[in-house]
């Protein structure tokens, strides 16, 4: 903005120089955003550790409904749920869905409240290849639950 204001009062030659500088700046900015886009997404282990911290999740307590064979990895329907009374004192705070075999391992994090009534959510995910889907649930008392389910993917859906 300040640059544009200045340009209005300078002569033509200065204008050309200024425009050149602006173009250079645009190129540099363009480069830095491109570099940012290529930054590697966190690995599954990093993401998993960030969610569970130093706790050990109890296995097999999060149910994951998935097709056994997903023909199209672009859209794989799934349902995750945890048995919980969903009362003010005891409810599921969140369920995180992770796909370790995807370029970015996080699918989604769902946050519930006692107003949810049931800790259950259905959605559709992209899967790059055959892999084990992992779901981690955080309870209001601080404990962690986990679940795992294998899904076979015929055609990967990450459009590479």
């Amino acid at each position, binding site marked *: 903005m300040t640059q544009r204001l200045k340009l209005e009062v300078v002569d033509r030659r200065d204008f050309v120089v200024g425009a050149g500088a602006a173009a250079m700046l645009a190129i540099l900015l363009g480069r830095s955003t*491109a570099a940012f886009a290529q930054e590697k997404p966190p690995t599954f282990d990093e993401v998993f550790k960030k969610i569970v911290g130093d706790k050990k999740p109890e296995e097999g307590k999060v149910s994951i409904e998935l097709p056994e064979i997903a023909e199209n990895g672009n859209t794989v*329907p799934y349902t995750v749920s945890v048995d919980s009374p969903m009362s003010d004192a005891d409810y599921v705070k969140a369920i995180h869905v992770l796909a370790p075999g995807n370029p*970015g391992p996080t699918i*989604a994090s769902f*946050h519930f409240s006692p107003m*949810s009534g*049931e800790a259950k959510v259905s*959605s559709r995910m*992209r899967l790059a290849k055959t892999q084990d889907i992992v779901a981690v649930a955080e309870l209001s008392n601080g404990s962690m639950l986990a679940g795992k389910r294998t899904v076979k993917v015929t055609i990967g859906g990450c459009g590479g």
Partner: protein
Amino acid sequence: MASKPRIKVPSSAKAGEVIEVKTLITHVMETGFRKGSDGKLVPRNIINTFTATFGGKEVFKADLSSGVSANPYIAFKFKVPAAGDLELTWVDDKGEKVVEKVAIAVS
């Protein structure tokens, strides 16, 4: 995010009943991992957050990532306390926001 999202709730519910709210919105959900015809990565543009509130209180929230399919479908549960409006909000990486209100009738 031009088109109107599709939202489905039961036509009426009893107070205290747990209902399912189904939502579907049109969005490319560009992953940021895909290369365009010019060989450059197409910048990520996804719906990153979806929230449902009832009477100003948050009922359900979803943080989405590139792994969510295009035109995201999300179905969640809601324990109806009383009649009122459920407010649903979608926000994408460009900051575009879609807000929809759906009336929950109690019989």
